[in-house]
């Protein structure tokens, strides 16, 4: 059987699972992350301005984007016997209750180093209007001894 790393090619696509954003999902993320910033909880507060930005209502935690991208990458890496090593993201637009968002990735480059093998993946999250709300880059390591799956048995 060929090595999973060898089968990869720039442009290969990785699909993540859609995530429905609601007040309840945002509240659950508050409890899970301990991030109770009123940006995510308090509509009256969110009528105000933040520096030069006015959101007009509560917004999802930016780090939910991060968690969803990371989940897509681990699902993909575990199945290939690889390891999710890095994720860098920036937020492009706020996400609000009622939005549906989906992470996706695309293999950008493969690189062998002295001791291992790496895949750079461009990642983004798009909403139901196909607008990008987050974008970034990830690194997944394919150890030279990597097997075919995350399970050894």
């Amino acid at each position, binding site marked *: 059987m060929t090595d999973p790393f060898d089968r990869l090619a720039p442009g290969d696509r990785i699909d993540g699972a859609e995530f429905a954003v609601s007040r309840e*999902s945002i509240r659950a993320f508050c409890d*899970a992350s*301990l991030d109770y*910033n*009123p940006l995510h909880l308090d509509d009256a507060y969110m009528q105000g301005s933040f520096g030069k930005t006015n959101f007009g209502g509560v917004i999802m935690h930016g780090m939910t984007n991060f968690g969803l991208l990371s989940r897509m990458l*681990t699902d993909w890496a575990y199945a290939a016997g690889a390891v999710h090593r*890095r994720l860098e993201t920036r937020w492009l637009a706020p996400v609000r209750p009622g939005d549906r968002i989906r992470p996706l990735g695309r293999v950008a480059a493969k690189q062998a180093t002295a001791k291992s093998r790496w895949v750079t993946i461009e990642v983004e999250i798009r909403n139901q209007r196909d607008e990008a709300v987050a974008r970034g880059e990830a690194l997944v390591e394919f150890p030279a001894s990597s097997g075919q799956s995350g*399970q050894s048995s």
Partner: protein
Amino acid sequence: MATRFETDFWKDAATRKIWDDIVPGAPRKTLPYTLTLDAIQRYCRAVGDLHPLYFDEDYARRSRYGGLIAPPSIHILLMFACTPADDWMRSPGTINAGQSWSYNEPARPGEVVTLEARALDKFIKKGRLFVIHDNVFFNPRGEVICAGRGWTIRPA
């Protein structure tokens, strides 16, 4: 014994450093935190991640990890769990502008996690007050779990 986590981020607002007070290079006060399986699984559910490495002990034991682990992005929880109520990350109106994290060893349930953190830089761009912060989490064996950098816009 862990102290109760304060969920009202307004309560200690007056005690927190504002942008003017933050000194790049100065260590932030941090707290050791016992990462429970319950906390890991609550985080996983909040992002819809039900992978058996986080939920199925038999599966995890047979895997290359030899037991249940936390997902890499557990640092999202650890940043708040390992910082006190007067930490400036909690200032209402703090905007997260972006993050980058590198992962080494997975965190595991039951481990006491420690954090070393500091601001690296602060600057003003297009009228916004930015701080760059640097955070490294360690497991009880002194191994790096993950290291990350965040860009936040501070409330004016």
